[in-house]
């Protein structure tokens, strides 16, 4: 798994790395139980302060994306749905509305958007509920 950071970006380094890991997990490029590089190794390869890497791991653990085992390192957590079904539906609708608004302004038809969503969805790792 390759990560990269760009200090000339408007996003702080810890957010760039956090988003890359979240996306890698969502796309199934990082599998549940898979181990992430140690803070030390990633700090060295990315040439970034180890405290920044440690902060990313800590925040992702709080979000339930990773879990750390003392002395062993950080691992991708098993997916778990903490929100109620209703809360998830509301959150999804909120995201869809924003996305559909943009799509309307791009001048696409509803059919084109639905087809594109179906195609992209194949690239992600979905939970089997």
């Amino acid at each position, binding site marked *: 798994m390759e990560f990269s*950071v760009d*200090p*000339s*970006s*408007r*996003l*702080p*380094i*810890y957010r760039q790395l956090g988003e890359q890991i979240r996306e890698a997990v969502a796309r199934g490029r990082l599998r549940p139980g898979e181990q992430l590089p140690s803070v*030390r190794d990633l*700090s*060295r390869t990315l*040439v*970034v*302060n*180890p*405290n920044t890497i440690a902060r990313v791991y800590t925040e992702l653990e709080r979000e339930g994306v990773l879990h750390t085992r003392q002395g062993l390192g950080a691992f991708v957590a098993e997916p778990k749905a903490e929100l109620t079904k209703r809360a998830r539906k509301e959150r999804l609708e909120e995201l869809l509305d924003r996305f559909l608004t943009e799509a309307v302004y791009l001048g696409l038809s509803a059919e084109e958007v639905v087809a594109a969503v179906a195609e992209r969805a194949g690239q992600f790792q979905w939970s089997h509920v």
Partner: protein
Amino acid sequence: MSDAIFTQRLTKYYGRRAVVDSLDLRVPQGSVYGFLGRNGAGKSTTIKMLTGMVRPDSGKAFVLGEDVAGLAPAARARIAYLAEGHPLYRWMTVGEMARFARAFYPTWNDQLLEQILDHFALPRRGKIRRLSNGQRAQLSLALAVAPDPELLILDDPTLGLDTVVRREFLESLIQVIQRRGRTILFSSHILGDVERVADRIGILVDGVLRVDCPTDAFKESVRKIVLQFGRTPPAFPGCRGLVSSRQAGANLELIVVGYGDEQRQACEALEPRAIDVIELNLEDAFIEYTRGPRRSLPIFATENRDVESLGAQGAA
């Protein structure tokens, strides 16, 4: 957490000008502190006062808990200093320089020194005068780290290095940081490097410490606000955290530290057609912050290490 560097109203005059003006600097132990400012802002003078090479006109400086004015040799041995430009005895070989430097320290980690010299592929028998600027910087870092110091003070260590050597230098610095508990203060003009390695930054403007906070907190607090009017914009009356405001055609462009409800209301009161809030990268944030009219710059300091709660707290 105790402070590895602590100054109280540290002041230095050159002629009638205060190059360092009542500086209260605190560098927490174990942190990597990026010390920033434009040329002539007082960074080098501050560093020279911290290392005892320049005497302050007033105020005090403490490093590793001891007053710099009466620093015992034992304390001095726990501090490493990389001077700007990496002055070394040019007639010595790399090996001779290492043996020479070693004699000044009670502790010396030969293994670490060899490791760094190998990493940089520095020839032990090469004369220092034949080394490139980059190699001299690498050698001085190796020599600074070998005594296993608790505090490293680096004055613009990557000045004049090419991109590749600078990256290698940073890689070595990361290795140094990974040894726990060590504190590093370094000055630099390369903001990308600073963001990679610094936990906290301090920005000196005309000898005054205007910013002192976690690196991300600064980046996430400075915003450019563009108010679109579609006609000649009115003057901006001002708000808390305002760094600068300028007219650009039919727009009014503001630089604000800690943009929140209060600042938004001040903008909305002018009834612009639209308000855009633009995030900046560290370099742009630094440029916009330091080129404003200097006397009125808002001081942005926080002890807060948790960036999330900063928005609620706002900038002082």
